């Protein structure tokens, strides 16, 4: 296995080559890199690969220390559709 084939996002199986090429082609920030490749959009919500995706994006863009790269969206854990309508009971 070469570096280019190395998986970065384990959930969506996005490779290092794909991420580096995309970042190089579009000078993406993390969010754009995620939207273009699906890295960080899988089952775990990017908890595992976010620092790696950030690192690739930061090669082309500056970090804004006041803005979380790769914004968090609810739900931060996968939820069954049937559980989403739960009624407060406490």
């Amino acid at each position, binding site marked *: 296995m070469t570096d280019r084939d190395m998986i970065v996002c384990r959930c969506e199986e996005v490779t290092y080559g794909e991420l580096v090429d995309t970042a190089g082609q579009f000078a993406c920030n993390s969010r754009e890199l995620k939207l273009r490749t699906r890295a960080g959009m899988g089952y775990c919500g990017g*908890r*595992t690969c976010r620092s790696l995706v950030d690192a690739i994006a930061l090669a082309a863009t500056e970090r804004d220390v006041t803005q979380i790269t790769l914004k968090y969206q609810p739900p931060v854990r996968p939820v069954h559709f049937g559980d989403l309508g739960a009624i407060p009971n406490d």
Partner: protein
Amino acid sequence: MTERILDHPVLGVLEPDQTVTFTFNGMKYEGRCGEPIAAALLAAGIRTLRHHEESGTPRGIYCNIGHCFECRVEVDGHQGVRACLTPVREGMVINGGGALPSPVRDWRKDNA
């Protein structure tokens, strides 16, 4: 094959616990009641818990504390259950998922 640490120089002797029997992918295994599914399976020498839905590559535990969801399995019909967090119980039926058909992606490959 891995093994249990029965006697630890600092943590001491592992207290005996009730043994439970469960199945994983149709095979019978034993575990310590209440330990996570992933620990029971590793003690039985099983590292592969599922195969990736698209590529079918084998996966096992990665973070072991519920963050990465790599160890998700089907337990008694419920999908997406984290083997690292879920205590093993008597009679549990556990299945590791495999590659799923991906008609949309296949169609795009040929038509888009």
